[in-house]
């Protein structure tokens, strides 16, 4: 598998990991960071000359971010950790736990990490839609751009800008160390709900389409804030901003949800491949966004079929 591997490093700190990667790059040849290995080993890139294993780094954690209700998640936190996190289960309707629980089989989730899931920049990445619906950012240590720019060689990139194309994360040779989720802006007397939806033949399949929605309504039941994110329906996981705009300022009800779902489908740029045709993906984007918004309505205690 790694026939041409010259070096396999297992550093204990982020600084050491970056130093090793820099030295290896100077020495020449392709290499990679590896966490759970559930993508890297399968890709089986025999040309890799070096690997820096991240499993000893102290990045396996889910922490509250200050008192405001935000979170930070270390990049080597496994999908199983997220799935079982009691704290995240109580945050944002457990939308991150729900998405993590659909990523691959139990054995994959025991090894695969949030950082690997994102850094592979697969358009079908299951954690991307819920994280986009939570305005999450990626914290990147080191790398060509980061070392100069930010204090401590770290920079924060909004997740939406982190995905630059299929398999193209905005890392510039840096290391994804943390995911930051800000406190959702729920006003006094308001309500918030999130939901995740995924379509695949089996739950553990790579998504044909996945989607997440987040909605915040004020005490007047008008939508104040909306996030709609769709995966596997374009070159990157995407935000359906025009659909979000359709919701904001109006009463949040089933009609609004269905209109937003239809508009969201129009914002996708799907391809046809072995899993589905582009037309099917576009149509299923509408269905999944509609379901996710219906779930948000239900979670707010509203009958999704009633207008109010």
């Amino acid at each position, binding site marked *: 598998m790694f026939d041409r591997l010259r070096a396999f490093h297992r550093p204990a700190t982020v600084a050491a990991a970056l130093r090793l990667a820099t030295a290896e790059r100077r020495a020449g040849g392709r290499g990679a960071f*590896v966490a759970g*290995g*559930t993508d890297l080993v399968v890709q089986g890139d025999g040309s890799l000359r070096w690997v820096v294993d991240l499993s000893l780094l102290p990045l396996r954690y889910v922490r509250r971010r200050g008192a405001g209700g935000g979170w930070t998640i270390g990049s080597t936190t496994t999908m199983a950790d997220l799935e079982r996190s009691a704290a995240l289960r109580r945050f944002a309707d457990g939308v991150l736990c729900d998405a993590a629980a659909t990523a691959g089989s139990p*054995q994959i989730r025991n090894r695969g990490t949030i950082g690997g899931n994102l850094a592979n920049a697969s358009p079908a990445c299951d954690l991307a839609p819920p994280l986009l619906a939570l305005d999450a950012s990626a914290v990147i240590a080191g790398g060509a751009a980061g070392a100069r720019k930010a204090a401590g060689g770290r920079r924060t990139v909004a997740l939406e800008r982190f995905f630059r194309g299929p398999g193209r994360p905005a890392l510039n040779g840096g290391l994804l160390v943390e995911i930051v989720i800000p406190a959702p802006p729920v006003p006094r007397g308001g309500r918030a709900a999130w939901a995740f939806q995924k379509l695949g033949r089996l739950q*553990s399949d790579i998504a044909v389409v996945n989607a997440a929605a987040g909605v915040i309504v004020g005490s007047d039941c008008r939508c104040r804030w909306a996030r709609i994110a769709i995966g596997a329906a374009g070159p990157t996981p995407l935000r359906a901003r025009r659909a979000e705009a359709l919701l904001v300022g109006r009463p949040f009800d089933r009609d609004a949800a269905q209109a937003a779902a239809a508009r969201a489908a129009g914002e996708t740029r799907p391809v046809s491949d072995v899993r589905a045709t582009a037309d099917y993906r576009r149509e299923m984007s509408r269905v999944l966004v509609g379901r996710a918004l219906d779930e948000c309505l239900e979670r707010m205690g509203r009958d999704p079929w009633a207008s109010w």
Partner: protein
Amino acid sequence: MANDPIQFTLNGKSVTLQTDPARLLLWVLRTDLELTGTKYGCGMGECGACTVLVDGQATRSCLTDLAAVRGKRVTTIEGLAEDGRPHPLQEAFDEHGGYQCGYCTSGMIMNAAGLLHAHPHPSRREIVEGMEGNLCRCGAHQRIVAAIESAATGTGRQP
């Protein structure tokens, strides 16, 4: 490439190996340690035949580099029996005929052991979902689920 010795606990006994840490656990188990109960199915993390427990968690040994188990407890199908008595899952698979050709069986039993470790009393639905990552190409699925159900309601002895 110079290799530091890698120590881990295998089926309750400490082992120390001097080999390339990037090698996959599956092949170290099968080749170096001659424990061939862990099967090579697809080699791509799709079929579950190579499942072992790492610190009690079901893990695909075909995707796991040796360095990742340094200092950890690895359990293979050979280490599941205690005092010469088969594990309740092994007994239940035997009783219910939870196999036909048997190639997927050790992976099935190890994944089920990981499942029961996390959820000692799973519902039928939890069993089906928890076993989704293990393929059986013969068609013993119903009997596999029945075997795990009966092991879960039995003595509940855990690895």
